[in-house]
């Protein structure tokens, strides 16, 4: 029975990890840019949700769309004004650029919001869900469901809309897409914006579960890396598989070795998968 409970916890965590990683994976896959800002975007989303709840009384579930829209604007501007200028440079340059931007954003958040860990406590939590012997807090389950919904929404957007097909076209062949009349710099900015929006939405959901602090951004970034590497780069199903795999690995690792080893385990898994299967567990490149 204990195993069932641990597996259920792992699945809930995994759904959130998928949501953390899917935007990061999109930016990496389409733009070939490692967005170090991703972790700070998530934290920024958490703070916006926190303030929306405390000041405006807006329930976090309702704050998801406005927060995602705000971060979309930030992401679109970042790519359009800054990253697009060096998009053709070697990976070292874009990586270093987003790293520098992350130092600025994260430091600003520490100064503005302080590094204290804050909690978003709902006045009316959703109660507890009993599934046989498995016990799950309702808010977590709802957060996971919304995370999966958002992830699925992004997948539909990429598959079913004109804009989404343009993003996938740029991912497959940048030059050919340009020749077919796709405005590549604009699609770059849209893609980066979508990645940031997903990060913001993930941040809102995470605020319900984890304490909020700028110091968490590195942790979330690490999760996004690991999930991408586990599931394979640049595909929504890959992020889903990778997220759930990481959630289960961490839950069972914590059960067998003790919770303090969870982070070490996930980094060990990261290095092992990179060394053995650099294309991820699904083992195929490309975007769905």
């Amino acid at each position, binding site marked *: 029975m204990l195993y069932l409970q641990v597996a259920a916890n792992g699945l809930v965590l995994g759904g959130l990890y998928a949501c953390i990683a899917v935007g990061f994976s999109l930016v990496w896959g389409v733009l070939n840019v490692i967005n170090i800002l991703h972790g700070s975007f998530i934290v920024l989303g958490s703070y916006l949700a926190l303030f929306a709840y405390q000041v405006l009384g807006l329930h976090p579930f309702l704050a998801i769309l406005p927060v995602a829209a705000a971060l979309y604007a930030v992401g679109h501007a970042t790519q359009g004004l800054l990253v697009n200028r060096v998009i053709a*440079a070697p990976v070292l340059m874009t*990586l*270093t650029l987003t790293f520098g931007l992350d*130092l*600025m954003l994260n430091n600003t958040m520490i100064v503005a919001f302080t590094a204290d860990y804050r909690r978003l406590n709902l006045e009316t939590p959703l109660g507890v869900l009993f599934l046989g012997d498995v016990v799950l807090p309702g808010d977590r389950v709802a957060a996971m469901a919304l995370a999966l919904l958002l992830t699925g929404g992004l997948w539909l957007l990429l598959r079913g809309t004109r804009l989404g097909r343009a993003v996938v076209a740029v991912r497959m062949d940048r030059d050919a897409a340009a020749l077919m009349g796709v405005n590549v710099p604009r699609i770059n900015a849209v893609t980066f914006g979508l990645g940031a929006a997903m990060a913001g939405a993930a941040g809102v959901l995470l605020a319900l579960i984890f304490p909020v602090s700028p110091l968490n951004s590195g942790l979330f970034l690490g999760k996004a890396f690991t999930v991408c590497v586990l599931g394979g780069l640049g595909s929504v199903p890959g992020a889903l598989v990778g997220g759930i795999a990481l959630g289960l690995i961490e839950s069972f690792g914590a059960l067998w070795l003790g919770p303090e080893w969870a*982070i070490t385990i996930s980094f060990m898994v990261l290095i092992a998968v990179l060394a053995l299967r650099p294309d991820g567990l699904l083992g195929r490149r490309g975007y769905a």
Partner: protein
Amino acid sequence: MSGLRDWALLVLGVAVLAALPMVADNYTLRLGTVFCMYAALALSWNVIGGFAGYPSFATAAFFGLGAYTCAILQSAGWPMLPALAAGGALAGLFAAAVGGAILHLRGHYFAIASLALAEVLRELATKLEWLTGGGMGLNLPVPAMELHAQAAFFLHLMLGVAALAGAATLLLRGSRLGFALRCIQQNEDAAGMLGVDTRRAKTLAFAISAIFPGLAGGAYASWTHYIEPPDVFDVLLSVKPLVMVLLGGLGTVFGPVVGAGLLLLFEEAVWRSFLTLHAAVLGVIIVVLVLFLPNGLMDATRRLLGRRGRGAA
């Protein structure tokens, strides 16, 4: 011959810094020590990042490994210098072993794998309390010396590390290995097809780029008498060398040293007045560098003066 001139420059620089304790106060000596540390880290990063073109973020891993090895051995009663050497050697061996596993990765994948190395080691250093003292950190024996003598001693120690790194860079530049690395940087597949043993060359370069940070970490631990995991495995230790090399010019010999000096000047001048915005200011420097001076300040100055420089290395 530019080779001779560069050796002369290296000897001259080392001599000037070595003579510093005769004229300078302890504050200047501290700055000199940090400068030597930065120069050693930047020169080492340049071997893998500049020559071979592999964006490594593993400097902090090697630095911390050297620091902890040196600290643990000294606590066990080893004298300082053998403990230091052991730290450098272990960092080099570690890099060679791990390099075999991750150096087949390209681009971002390699960057992330190297970044994760430092994270894993930091977590291990925090968890293995019986060995490392965990989050409490480790105290090192304080040498029985008067303050100025101590400052001079550690300046000379760190200068020795930096001089070794500089000499290694100069030797590497003219060697077959250096040539192989530059081929790998330009086109790895072509280099492999033409008979360059790319795996061996990259692993050697990674190991070389680990030895000096390992030594510098050991010297740093002995110098500050106290280390803890977030301090010696700090991700900024991986990023600063890259910034210094970008400042000075990628793949050149003395660019990293110039970059180290410039970054140190920035740190002292700007961060003293903006203590809480320390990281943000570094971020601004990075962004400006990448967007406006991708070939380094030295190159920009050269172009500004309207003269064509000798070019990279």
